[in-house]
């Protein structure tokens, strides 16, 4: 067990040494990986900021439930109770027909027209705030309430939320596609770096095999190299994004002042940052694993 640890610590130390001994090459490799990862991650940050913006601009989706004109106060009470007890209803506010008429008069300036009407044409209504915002569950709720007795019409004000969601979903899909492409690029860069390393260390590998090194012993420093390079690339991508968001925030200060509102972009969250680093290290490891498996077997002492 102790030897095992020594092996790993040793490999890590050797690897760090190799990375630092060729600082220029390392810097370029890390930059390439960093830039490649920064593109999809940057788009992702843009999308989460757009989501924030949408949330702050758009009101929550709500349902308007209109009752039949002949619904009495008993019916109103019954429906109110049913709405309140419904698991997917967060809040239900009763708007009586008189209240609705008053509001209509006040907000539209049609007071004269309304006054000339023989009676109140408006029904009693409820404004329902649902618990979830997913379009499917909203539609389900609408269809369910519509079937209740004394309910004539249910209107779902979620069209906007739905469009936004669809748009962002498409954008996220585009980001995933882009991320896949760049992940492939990262694997390819690592594959090639490791291939060159194996070629330049041919002698060392051959001698190691001759004096009884196992394949995993020989493989280990290369795998560490790939993982560390990937990790450094991930850190570079993170730094690029952080710097980009900071610069934009600096520029947005003026805009905020003009609009007298606080407009600020969000940085990559802790969880997303951690995933970025883990992901880039894992891809680096994978790229070097592919390379090592492909090229190490070719070196057999003769």
């Amino acid at each position, binding site marked *: 067990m*102790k*030897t*095992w640890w*020594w*092996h790993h610590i*040793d490999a890590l130390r050797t690897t760090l040494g190799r990375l630092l001994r060729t600082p220029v090459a390392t810097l370029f490799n890390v930059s390439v990986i960093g830039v490649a990862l920064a593109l999809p991650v940057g788009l992702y940050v843009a999308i989460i900021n757009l989501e924030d913006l949408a949330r702050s601009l758009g009101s929550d989706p709500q349902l308007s439930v209109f009752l039949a004109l002949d619904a009495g106060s008993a019916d109103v009470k019954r429906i109110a109770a049913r709405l309140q007890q419904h698991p997917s209803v967060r809040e239900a506010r009763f708007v009586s027909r008189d209240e609705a008429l008053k509001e209509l008069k006040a907000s539209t300036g049609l007071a004269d027209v309304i006054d000339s009407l023989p009676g109140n044409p408006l029904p009693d209504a409820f404004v329902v705030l649902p618990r979830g915002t997913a379009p499917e569950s909203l539609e389900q709720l609408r269809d369910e309430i519509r079937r209740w007795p004394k309910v004539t019409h249910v209107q779902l004000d979620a069209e906007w939320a739905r469009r936004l969601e669809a748009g962002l979903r498409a954008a996220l899909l585009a980001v995933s596609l882009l991320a896949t492409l760049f992940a492939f690029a990262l694997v390819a860069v690592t594959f090639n770096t490791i291939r060159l390393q194996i070629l330049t260390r041919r*002698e*060392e590998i*051959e*001698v*190691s*095999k*001759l*004096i*009884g*090194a*196992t*394949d995993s*012993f020989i493989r280990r420093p290369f795998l560490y190299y790939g993982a560390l390079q990937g990790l450094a690339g991930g850190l570079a991508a993170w730094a690029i994004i952080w710097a980009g968001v900071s610069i934009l925030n600096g520029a947005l200060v003026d805009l905020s002042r003009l609009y007298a509102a606080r407009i600020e972009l969000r940085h990559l969250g802790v969880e997303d940052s951690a995933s970025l680093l883990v992901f880039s290290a894992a891809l680096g490891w994978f790229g070097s694993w592919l390379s090592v498996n492909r090229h190490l077997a070719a070196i057999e*002492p*003769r």
Partner: protein
Amino acid sequence: MISFSQVTKRYPGGLEALRGVTLTIEAGEIVFVTGPSGAGKSTLLKLMAAIERPTSGSVMISGQNVGALRPRAVPFLRRKLGLIFQDQKLLFDRSVFDNVMLPLAVTGFERREAARRVRAALDKVGLLAKEKAHPVRLSGGEQQRLAIARAIVHRPAILLADEPTGNLDAAYAAGIGELFRSFNQVGVTVVIATHDEAFAARMKPRHIALKEGKLAR
């Protein structure tokens, strides 16, 4: 310790390096394998270290059939051997000390004990004063002794040397011969392949002569 029975080695291309060789080397022996170049000396050693596999016949080392060893098991066989090559195979990007450290590093030896052993091996071959030097700065004879130090640092039971005095003058060769004898005296089985008949004769050991892939005597 080492036994060959009816071993034939044919290389791709048809060259037959060994033809039906049968021999036994006991534990603790020191044996010279001689013969002109191309007689199969190197092949004989390579078969012992599983660097090559026999085309037919079997090569046994301490009861293990080396020719049929799974690739995974090969490193563990080689840890029991000390190998000295014609072209030495030193690593020129690291110090004398680190070159000798290599066999201990691959087995994950405890660091302080490993350093002690490396110095003991360097002392044995007379290179202790040069442990920090790089192999390029050493003379041909010193490089050869460095290769020997690397081969013995992990205290192998068997030492295999291919042309250890290859391009050294006679005085130097004699020194190296004495070195091998001293390892043999502490119980190491030593097999040396050489075309240098004078060197072999001076040592007066058991002698296996090869000629065109067959035992000559």
